[in-house]
């Protein structure tokens, strides 16, 4: 197996293929702190792509309640368990072996799902969730770890849960792609979206077995597997609404909690993100380091990044998002002026924002975070499309409008 570089793990790792050479990569940031699990994203996806016979148990987008929920049931616990059994006691990070560019979270010293596989029965360590496990996609909804009689307080709530929003991670090193013996799965160079060729698939379910996030799903009515297609017609810009310019996916644009931001980032030949300081995703992931990959230790270099929930015990979060959790929560709890401005871009437009600039505004107030008093500024963030034209302009302070005293018909 050729070695490839996984920057999320801070090291080289084995993968079945050399780096695929994607020039741009589909990527997104989900802010778990803001999600209310309304499932609007889930239904937007369902009503667009998976409403037909054989797709009943298929939810390309789902929102599950952690720690108990999971679709399919207990998917993450099962993979973690398989990995732990394959490499007992050694699935550890070295958080001190860091480099701002090549190992921002430290170095993972355990084994990835590619490295624990025996190579005979499996190219990738994994399992096939049974049909039963795909049923009840929102089991354990809103189930907290404990009832906190005396209420809760930060930094860690004594009884807690949080919502985890999940789509296909369109991984840089997709496990599904590595496992497919038919070469039916491919990663598009133009946007890094991972697709299953419905003409070549013969339903071996190797991808269902291999994908650690369980986002490759079997469809009995065609005997093939299907997966999240990253709404590629929208990302390609073929929707007439945006006049040929790339547009965010259905699940992203439907988000009423404004927790999601999706875009395309530039990727080098080695699979790492090219420096693109003014791309909002690049800024959040690589500069502010406020958003982290989901279970990076699996080794697929997933491309959906999460702003971790502030109230959840850190051990749990470190297991889920890696050792970058403490810094990410600190950066979110007391955001810089720039971070606060970039966060305003979430759901401000349906078009993909390729770059932004921040126009400084006046001081608008003060807020106490912990023991520190922080100043707030009413900065304005401006988003630009792929042709560097302004598409959105949002201020940090939400504008306030006063209604006339006399309310007329149809006045909101």
């Amino acid at each position: 197996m050729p070695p490839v570089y996984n920057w999320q793990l801070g090291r080289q790792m084995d993968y079945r293929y050399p780096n695929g050479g994607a020039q741009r990569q589909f990527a997104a940031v989900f802010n778990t702190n803001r999600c209310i699990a309304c499932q609007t994203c889930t239904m937007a996806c369902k009503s667009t792509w998976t409403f037909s016979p054989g797709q009943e148990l298929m939810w390309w987008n789902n929102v599950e309640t952690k720690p108990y929920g999971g679709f399919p049931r207990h998917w993450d616990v099962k993979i973690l368990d398989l990995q732990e059994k394959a490499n007992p006691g050694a699935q550890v990070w070295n958080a001190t072996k860091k480099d701002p560019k090549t190992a921002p979270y430290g170095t993972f010293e355990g084994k990835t799902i590619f490295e624990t596989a025996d190579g005979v029965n499996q190219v990738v360590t994994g399992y096939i969730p049974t049909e039963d496990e795909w049923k009840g996609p929102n089991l354990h909804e809103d189930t907290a770890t404990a009832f906190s009689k005396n209420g809760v307080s930060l930094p860690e709530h004594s009884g807690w849960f949080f919502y985890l929003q999940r789509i296909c991670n369109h991984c840089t090193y997709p496990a599904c792609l590595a496992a497919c013996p038919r070469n039916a799965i491919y990663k598009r160079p133009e946007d890094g979206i991972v697709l299953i060729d419905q003409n070549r698939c013969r339903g071996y379910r190797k991808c269902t077995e291999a994908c650690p996030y369980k986002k490759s799903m079997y469809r009995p009515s065609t005997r093939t597997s299907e997966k999240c297609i990253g709404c590629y017609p929208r990302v390609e810009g073929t929707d007439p609404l945006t006049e040929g310019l790339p547009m965010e996916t259905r699940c992203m644009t439907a988000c009423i909690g404004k927790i999601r931001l999706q875009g395309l980032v530039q990727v080098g030949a080695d699979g790492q993100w090219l420096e693109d300081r003014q791309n909002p995703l690049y800024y959040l992931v690589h500069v502010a380091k406020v958003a982290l990959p989901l279970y990076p230790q699996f080794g697929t270099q997933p491309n959906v990044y999460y702003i971790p929930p502030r109230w959840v015990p850190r051990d749990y979060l470190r297991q889920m998002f890696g050792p970058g959790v403490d810094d990410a929560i600190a950066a979110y709890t007391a955001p810089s002026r720039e971070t606060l401005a970039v966060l305003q871009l979430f759901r401000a437009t349906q078009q993909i924002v390729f770059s932004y600039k921040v126009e400084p505004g006046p001081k608008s107030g003060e807020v106490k975070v912990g023991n520190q008093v922080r100043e707030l500024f009413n900065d304005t963030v401006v988003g630009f499309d792929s042709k560097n034209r302004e598409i959105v302009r949002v201020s940090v302070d939400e504008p306030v409008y006063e209604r006339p005293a006399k309310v007329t018909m149809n006045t909101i």
Partner: protein
Amino acid sequence: MYKRLPRVRRRWQLGLGAAAALLAAAGLQFFDANPATSQSLFLTAYSAGSDPGLDPADGVWKNAVPVQVPLTAQAGTYAAGGGSIPTVSAKALHYQGKLYVRVEWADTTKDESTTKVENFSDAVAVEFPAKSAASVPALCMGQADAGVNIWQWRADSQAGIKDPVDVYAGALVDMYPTKDTLFYTARAAGNPYANPDQGPVQTLVSQTFGTLTIANVQDVRGQGAWNNGNWAVVFTRSYAGADPSQAAFADGATTDMAFAVWNGSEGDRNGRKSVSAFVRLTISGTDLGAGGGDNTLAIALAVALLGGTVVIGAGLAISGYREKAAR
């Protein structure tokens, strides 16, 4: 260095050893036990007296001589496991320009539903070199200058592809906005594997691992039946292949043929299967008469020959000993 034995005693031993080996071989042959099967197996397709059809239980097969083809785990391009089915019993016939192949194997579980994500189908395939093959192809999916033609029969295909709502009688679905084929994505993409009208057999072509593709013309027919822990499947196709990527046969011709069996309950699919080596298939001009293909006579002859050889060998050894002793 060991001391050399006297010539006389060595001859005795040789004679006894030969006799023992021959007797053992005769015994094994007689009881149909085969501890180490030869690398080269031969299967002959005799001319059938009547059309064997697709029914594995058709009487015409009774007279055809089976070849026991041993199977192993798949260890080709990369090992992929399998190997739970140790052997298949293969027979072949031809009738009016059509080749018939009948494969039977023991499988206690009848796996013919793939509605659940965790369930896999039983299946069997036979593989031939493509008509255009310049050399003997690699067993695993052929090679660039020597493709292979694979006929695969699947239990789930024979049972039929169904929508889950038609499988689960109590399933409750609010509504399907449409049931148009367009939204059965793989079908709409033209994937024959997803087509419920395809039938139980597919003919496929391949020119190296990872290039297995459905053949343009689907002209192989087949049918399987499961009885008392045994699958029996019949394949048939006209001698002439539709195009150079497919196999071609002729009266009196010889070709290679390999077998693969998938055991659904073992999670077999794709490379995870039990496979054979190539077997030589001869399409004989000889008629398969009633009892003509029975091998009782052949075995009796073989035993007589073996017995004779043993007697001669022993006689020679004894006479040799006597000669020596007389000197």
